[in-house]
């Protein structure tokens, strides 16, 4: 029991009390449900892998998105995390391929380009020669640093590098927008 409490305690956001509560909940749980949970954990570790092409998490290698011939293989969208791929797929407005970096450059936390799947991206660009590379990293300090870094190391190549537009989110209030977002929203304004 203490082993299970310690294991739960190692999960993000789970403190010692929550770990104890989860353990007692598991003890009271039906055997079938508990075994289903342990099997799901085992399956995740055994079957889930990183796609050799886009580095997204997948059960099949290469993943379904990379294998889909109906998608635009000349456009690559670079994202920080696998969850970003899900968010972009939900929009239904992008039909190209992805590349997941698994993080962002963070000088203050000592996360450098060698901690990301950047070498794989460079290799992929030299192999498939995409027409456009969309940098969809988060619009914060780490995301901007990552986008600028990628732009810097690809200077001189023929690939067109674009960045997702920045501006005001739906439902927001102009009064509370920061000056950086507002000025970028002005720069990116479009004719109606």
């Amino acid at each position, binding site marked *: 029991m203490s082993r299970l409490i310690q294991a739960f305690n190692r999960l993000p956001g789970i403190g010692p009390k929550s770990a104890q509560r989860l353990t007692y909940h598991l003890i009271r749980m039906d055997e079938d449900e508990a075994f289903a949970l342990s099997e799901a954990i085992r399956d995740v570790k055994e079957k889930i892998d990183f796609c050799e092409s886009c580095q997204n998490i997948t059960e099949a290698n290469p993943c379904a998105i990379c294998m889909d011939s109906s998608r635009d293989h000349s456009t690559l969208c670079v994202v920080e995390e696998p969850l970003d791929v899900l968010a972009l797929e939900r929009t239904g407005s992008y039909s190209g391929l992805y590349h997941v970096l698994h993080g962002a450059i*963070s000088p203050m936390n*000592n*996360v*450098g*380009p060698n901690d990301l799947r950047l070498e794989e991206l460079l290799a992929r660009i030299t192999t498939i020669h995409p027409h456009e590379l969309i940098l969809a990293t988060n619009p914060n*300090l780490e995301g901007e640093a990552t986008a600028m870094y990628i732009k810097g*190391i690809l200077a001189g190549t023929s690939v067109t590098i674009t960045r997702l537009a920045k501006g005001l989110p739906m439902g927001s209030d102009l009064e509370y927008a920061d000056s950086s977002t507002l000025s970028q929203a002005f720069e990116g304004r479009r004719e109606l």
Partner: protein
Amino acid sequence: MPRQYTYATEAIILRRSSVGETDSLVTLYTKSYGKMRAFARGVRKPNSKLGGHLEPLNQVNLLITQGRSLPLITQADMIQGFYTPSTNFEAIVSGCYIADCLDALTVEEVESQSLYSLACRQFKQVQAVENAQTQLRFFELQLLAISGYQPEVNVCLYCRKLPKRYSIYFSFEAGGILCQDCKNQFNCFVISETSTKALRYLLTTETEDAQKIRMPEAIQKELAHVLTNYLQFVIDRRLQSLVFYHRLQKWESSVIANPRTIY
């Protein structure tokens, strides 16, 4: 400065770390109360009114309320943002280094308006200049001086005599230069006369004039070695942003043709 339950202050955002689903823990260097950590609720939601203002390296006006354990940021208004579409990668890395040094060398709740003004000026300056190395050396020296760790660069620390031209030594332990006769008293290494002169100039000059100094690459490197290591000696740990930079240089030299020099 005595504080009320709710108080307003200017601040620089040094770092921001995620807490829970949408909250952040923000490390600030405030003008009126020195370094402090404060909690910002819901700032990672896309529609958050505070989110964009509380990005690292921003200078902001804040309204803070005393929370149960940590102060709570209730309002934020950006005075100036550090990165604009024209900011480059080198400026971001230099800005992060300044924030990291400031965070490492200061203790919470000790106010210093001169440190606050220095940081504001240097954040702006590293964006404006093409090569931020001199500005970073200037910042390190001024930060050390304001914090009470100014290195002695005029006379030998031990005998108080002027060292001879080609026999100047620098000691982290002693906190400055030593002459040939006194060098055995401490662990030390040779430092060039030009670097010693540059240190003297950077200690006495202003932000704008610091950029006027022209130094050969070898002197830039020597100064970077002396100051970054002296700073780390003082704080007694390695700066994450420096480790990042050394790893970046190593990776770039193996992957890219022209690795950059930032620090």
